[in-house]
């Protein structure tokens, strides 16, 4: 069965770009969130296999959303996808259970690889 994916990014451009890459590679995008709070709500409702999570977003940022999702589902598979590649931020995300960390701009193959790694 195709992996079900939730995309989280405040930029419409990034949501469209990610969705195109994912659907062209046979994955199913089941939801799109434009901030962390929406992502937490949609995660509970949709139970996706993989979540793509931006960090810099209004209302609730991606690190806070990662923590909230992992608190409710310790098996949640969250991939951070952000322009912020500081070591401190990468470490914080990994410590809170992020499975992968993709720095923008990225090559489409990097996105596909991240989903394929998810069991």
């Amino acid at each position: 069965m195709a992996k079900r994916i939730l995309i989280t990014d405040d930029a419409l451009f990034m949501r469209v770009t990610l969705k195109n890459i994912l659907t062209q590679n046979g994955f199913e995008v089941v939801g799109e969130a434009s901030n962390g709070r929406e992502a937490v709500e949609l995660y509970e409702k949709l139970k996706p296999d993989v979540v793509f999570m931006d960090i810099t977003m209004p209302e609730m940022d991606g690190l806070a959303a990662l923590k909230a999702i992992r608190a409710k589902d310790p098996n949640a598979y969250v991939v951070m996808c952000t322009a912020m590649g500081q070591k401190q931020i990468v470490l914080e995300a990994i410590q809170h259970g992020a499975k992968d960390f993709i720095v923008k701009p990225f090559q489409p193959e990097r996105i596909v690889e991240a989903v394929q790694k998810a069991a």
Partner: protein
Amino acid sequence: MKVEYISPFVTAAIEVCQMMLGITPQRGQLNARKGIFTSQQCNIVLGVTGQLEGMIIYGMSIFTADKIASQMLGTTIRTFDELAASAIAELGNMISGNALTKLASTGYQCNLSPPSIIRGSSVRISTLEIPTLVIPLITELGELEINVGLQERTK
């Protein structure tokens, strides 16, 4: 305003433009301004907090904004809609995020606000009288002006 704050932005802008737009910008003449001010038609504004505080503005003409958005979306845009605006905003976010990553490796830990797009010329942001360095990047899609107004947080 230290000149060392600006080079990570120039390097990041060149790298991101190469990857996202397939172009290599040329660096123009550096200018200093007393405050943050932009006379460009389309501006991406991002706030910086942390060990350095202030604002980054990427300014360009409407013509250049259309060209950049078209290049990013892989199709010629007819109206500058939400998708086009978010493409331009994301370019600013990527350049700034990569620049802050470079600044972090030299000891300045900073965070970024989500980008805003301001359209209309001669915008002065009068609450922030931070000395600003302006560097024009000359590209085949037009000029992209980077305004870096950062100062060390007062302890």
